[in-house]
């Protein structure tokens, strides 16, 4: 991951010569695709002056922080998850007494950066400990667990452990890293039928950038890629701690033929690398089409053009012609998303009405855009409604947002609302490869109209159990609670359609077996089931919340998310982590989840929010003073100026009007 210049500066601060990182340990425990990650760092101010020590951890965006503790010279700050407004209120109160400082979470592409900084006198010992949890998502046949390692300097005790336990067995485990090929052989993998352990423990000498360097070469990503053994097409049903999980990931089924309309933004902002990479990706995507597939291409700026008015088969003749067309496009002008999407729907409708679409095929629109609408209908809510109204149940919309100038939330919303998925593509990365990868994820639909059922008497609190499509290499997950019963097994059914048949799959599980196995495992993630169920439920509710049709419904969902987040100690978009000093609860730090950068909250955050610890007085009192107040912590009586809001200098979630704090537009 690339750091922003601001992060670079901050990173520079912690690599000063008078700071010793005594140990840096990362431990992941993955059980049934659910990971609990702990990052621990022990640091000493070994200089002669007081100075700032920062703790930065990059965590995947889909992860939820579950705890953070900090110990400074024996004084412990303990984290607890609170409802966001309450946390902010408590924090504001502490801040008014100069007893608070911020922990900042910032966005960085697929990652969020959790960062805190303490100002400590010489000789101080600081221990940081961050916990987060995440569900491994299967993509293109693998679960990928990435750990972002930035110890900042050479560390005498540096260790990464990843423990994986999968009840059904581990089919393969492989590792990769971005620090350098010399580290490949230092990453040791041991695995048995159902367990794997990855350990990376380089010595100080091995951490060096070169033989005599004092810099650490470890600055990047360690990735563990694995897949599980699947001996049943029906999927895997697991029960632990009265929660059940059903994983469905069949392979060896023929994919549905596809009817795809590619809708490509060719407005002025696409000019240059973005367009070049889009063309490059489209070349490969078009090559993947078969004669059974049908496709169309619509390119749009302020005008909308169709390469061909109707869908055509994916023969080499047509794909070659389509490639030439795309290669000749010169981006310019505005962005008329609404009309482009309407034309795409019409193209599919026409094919449908003329009976040119195989009843067992999948119809999809893939929208590639890098910016907000500027021409035609520009109101996002109206576009959203128009699309929903125009789309048939049989069609789905997939959105690809290139770069940060696009309202990704909007693209995600319209995709989710229309049975599709969204993906952000980072223009500064290999965009063509990212686009191709996304296409591969959605280009092989194996099942459609999937419904997972259990008897009402056996389960409750079931997460999403109906899915529009299942794509090759991915996985559908359903979770819920098992109701008490005499039975020692749980069974369920899945119905679905494939490209040439209808299926009913039956699955069953012994409700005690997994817990018996877990009890024998030393490194499994204890209590994973409860957390995993909550994680899935919260993620689902967050999705539902953004699509809630009424304010009342939204409020209800909000309450449910908050309640679950508090019960399960997750920092979600509606909760915050309040870190308080055991000895003096008024001393506190606050970690909120960041918003999408398009909303302007995070890239401008100062790196100076920090806790200052003066030399420990004889009486043992230590207090925290924020030397400079983070500007997102504006007092409620001081509303931001319109220009601040416009420039995105103020977190929209904290915009205050007449002393009333508006939270997440609820």
């Amino acid at each position, binding site marked *: 991951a690339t750091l922003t210049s601001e992060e670079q500066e901050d990173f520079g601060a912690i690599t000063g010569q008078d700071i010793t990182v005594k140990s840096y340990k990362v431990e992941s425990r993955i059980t049934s695709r659910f990971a609990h990650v702990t990052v621990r760092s022990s640091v000493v101010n070994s200089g002669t002056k007081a100075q700032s020590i920062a703790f930065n951890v990059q965590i995947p965006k889909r992860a939820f922080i579950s705890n953070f503790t900090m110990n400074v010279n024996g004084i412990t700050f303990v984290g607890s998850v609170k409802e966001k407004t309450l946390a902010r209120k408590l924090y504001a109160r502490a801040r008014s007494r100069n007893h608070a400082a911020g922990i900042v979470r910032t966005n960085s592409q697929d990652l969020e950066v959790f960062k805190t900084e303490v100002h400590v006198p010489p000789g101080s010992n600081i221990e940081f400990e961050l916990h987060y949890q995440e569900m491994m998502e299967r993509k293109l046949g693998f679960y990928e667990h990435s750990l972002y390692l930035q110890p900042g300097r050479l560390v005498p005790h540096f260790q990464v452990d990843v423990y994986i336990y999968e009840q059904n067995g581990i089919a393969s485990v492989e590792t990769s890293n971005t620090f350098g090929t010399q580290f490949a052989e230092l990453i040791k993998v041991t695995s048995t039928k159902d367990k794997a352990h990855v350990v990376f423990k380089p010595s100080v000498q091995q951490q060096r950038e070169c033989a005599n360097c004092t810099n650490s070469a470890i600055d990047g990503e360690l990735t563990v890629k694995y897949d599980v053994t*699947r001996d049943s097409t029906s999927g895997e049903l697991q029960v632990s701690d009265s929660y059940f999980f059903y994983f469905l990931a069949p392979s*060896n089924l*023929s994919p549905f033929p596809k009817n795809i309309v590619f809708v490509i933004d060719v407005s002025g902002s696409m000019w240059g690398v973005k367009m070049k990479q889009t063309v490059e990706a489209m070349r490969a995507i078009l090559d993947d089409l078969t004669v059974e597939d049908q496709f169309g291409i619509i390119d749009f700026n302020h005008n909308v053009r169709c390469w061909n008015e109707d869908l055509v088969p994916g023969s080499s003749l047509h794909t070659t012609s389509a490639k030439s067309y795309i290669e000749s496009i010169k981006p310019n002008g505005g962005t008329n998303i609404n009309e482009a999407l309407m034309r795409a729907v019409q193209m599919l409708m026409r094919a449908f009405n003329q009976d040119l679409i195989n009843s067992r095929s999948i119809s999809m629109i893939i929208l590639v855009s890098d910016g907000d609408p500027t021409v035609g209908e520009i109101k996002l809510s109206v576009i959203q409604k128009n699309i929903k109204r125009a789309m048939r149940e049989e069609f789905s919309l997939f959105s690809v947002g290139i770069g940060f100038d696009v309202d990704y939330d909007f693209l995600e919303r319209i995709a989710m609302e229309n049975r599709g998925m969204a993906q952000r593509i980072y223009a500064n990365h290999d965009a063509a490869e990212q686009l191709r990868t996304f296409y591969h994820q959605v280009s092989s639909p194996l099942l459609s109209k999937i419904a997972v059922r259990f008897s009402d008497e056996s389960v409750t609190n079931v997460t999403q159990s109906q899915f529009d499509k299942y794509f090759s290499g991915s996985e559908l997950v359903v979770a819920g609670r098992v109701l008490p019963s005499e039975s020692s097994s749980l069974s369920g059914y899945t119905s679905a359609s494939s*490209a*040439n048949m209808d*299926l009913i799959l*039956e699955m069953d599980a012994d409700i005690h077996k997994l817990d018996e196995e877990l009890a024998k495992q030393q490194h499994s993630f204890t209590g994973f089931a409860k957390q995993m169920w909550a994680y899935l439920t919260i993620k689902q509710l967050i999705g539902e919340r953004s699509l809630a049709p009424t304010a009342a419904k939204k409020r209800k969902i909000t309450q449910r998310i908050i309640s679950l987040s508090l019960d399960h100690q997750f920092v979600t978009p509606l909760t915050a982590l309040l870190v308080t000093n055991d000895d003096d609860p008024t001393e506190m730090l606050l970690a909120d989840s960041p918003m999408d950068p398009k909303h302007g909250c995070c890239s401008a955050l100062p790196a100076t929010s920090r806790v200052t610890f003066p030399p420990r007085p004889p009486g043992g009192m230590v207090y925290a003073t924020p030397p400079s107040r983070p500007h997102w912590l504006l007092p409620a009586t001081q509303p931001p100026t319109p220009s601040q809001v416009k420039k995105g200098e103020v977190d929209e979630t904290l915009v205050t009007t007449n002393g009333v704090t508006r939270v997440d537009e609820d």
Partner: protein
Amino acid sequence: PHFIIRLPRSNMDVCFNIDSKPGHILNLVSDIGTGVVVNGQLISSKKVHKDKLKTYFGVVSVYYQPEGFSVTVSTDRITTTDGRRSNVFTWGSTAEITHDGVTVSIVKNAQATITINNRIQVTVLLHRVWKKHPVNVDFLGVYLSNSNQYSPLVHGLIGQFSQEPEVRVYGVHEGADPLKKEATMEVKGNKLLVTRGWQKDYTWDRKHGSNVYCWFIHNSGKGFIDGHYSDYIVPDLDSFLQLP
């Protein structure tokens, strides 16, 4: 493999073995009237035991020509194909698959039943053995219901008995083995020396099977089946029997 033919009118069971070569595909049912063909491919035991290399059904295929749809059941997996598209199911699944008029019901690690238009049903039983067994291998058993509604054109090692032949058994006497009586059977104009014995039917008890007492026809069913067993060897899993 051994064959047990139930003859309801005569109220008797007749058995025979066919010991062909591993890899050979035997036609069990060939019905050009309904477009259904059932074939079984032979596999052998791991090594010669008591001077004999046993053969079993390792793959059973049911092909329904009108839909161009085939179900191939092996000891590893169940594959359905409709020409261009194929889908693979593991024996670890319990599933019901429907393709137009064909339904495939898989019972996890036990059996697969293929039903065509609710008229013809073929059940394939999976027999798993200890993986490290020095001789035995996993094999399949095929069960075809007597109530299957074939066309009058049906033939094949089993299909030919959908029209039950007249069978008369007489002259029951002690055989060389005092436990096995012998007799003469008159069938299809042939007089055959038959031996009383039993074979295993695993329909109800998949593990131990149940004994079915039957009259055993020697020489690979010679005289009881039409022609020679080698006449039933077909080139492909979806081949119909070529009648002379």
